[in-house]
């Protein structure tokens, strides 16, 4: 399959992840959708790396994985803290930015 197919798959997964962020209310699932989007980007990066024939894209993908890991850590820490304080684990209930 040509590189274009991989890029198409990546775009599809990215769009699915974006839609998921908009639809779901559970912050955990929203974080999972964020992971989806990151992975789609990773796929695109690897595809381009193959296209050019050097390893830059793969290094970048690794760094993206590192960043994703950090982000997940902090995000899950937030959710744990929310749960500790008996706050509802629902993104729509967290409205203190309103107004």
């Amino acid at each position, binding site marked *: 399959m040509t590189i274009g197919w991989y890029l198409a798959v990546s775009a599809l997964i990215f*769009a699915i992840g974006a839609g998921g962020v908009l639809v779901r209310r*559970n912050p955990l699932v929203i974080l999972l959708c964020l992971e989806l989007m990151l992975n789609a980007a990773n796929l695109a990066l690897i595809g381009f790396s193959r296209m050019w024939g050097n390893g830059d894209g*793969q290094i970048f993908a690794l760094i993206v994985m590192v960043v994703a890991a950090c982000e997940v850590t902090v995000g899950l820490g937030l959710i*744990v803290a929310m749960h500790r*304080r008996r706050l509802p684990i629902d993104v729509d209930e967290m409205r203190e930015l309103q107004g």
Partner: protein
Amino acid sequence: MSTVIFFIAGLGAITGAIGVIALQNPLYSVLALVGHLISLAALFLLLRAEFVAAAQVIVYAGAVMVLYVFVVSYVGNDAAPVGQNPGRAATLGAFACGAALVVELFIAVLGSGLQAIGTDGAPYVAGFGSPEQIGRLLLTRFLAPFEIASYLLLVAAVGAVTLARRRGGLDQGIEGQPPTISVADLLRPRPLGTGTMAEAGGRVEVGDQ
């Protein structure tokens, strides 16, 4: 042969993605994501990125998703009602958003006029995607990003511990006054049982919480 594998892996990835957003139970979503990640690893292999594929399975699916599973189990599903479905209008809106995004990205990617997209890529050089190449690149060209990424990991770890530790916080303020903190509060030695480092390090007996 590679075509078949491509389609299987691709379908697996897309199915996993849809599963993530569609399944109600967050644990099932996590499992769907795991499946999605493994399919992606297969796609990486097809693209000759061996090391990245391995890292994906071990680090991403192996560590990060396990972390997710822990938290999902801890938080549980019953204490926090997910609430009603967002409603028809919001779902359709999200759908439209996603569709628009897909269409745009397709146009951007496929109509970009890059000749090489229509090919299989550059000619294969032995050692492409191998750990040896990755390592060489990491320690020569991409040394700075490598170091910064490790620093970022350190910061994230500290941040996670800080966020999630127990402490007597603002919800136990003085009666009659709105919960506030002042500089004096920060300088005062912390009472026991609030998750201080001394307790965590085992220097002091942990109080009852």
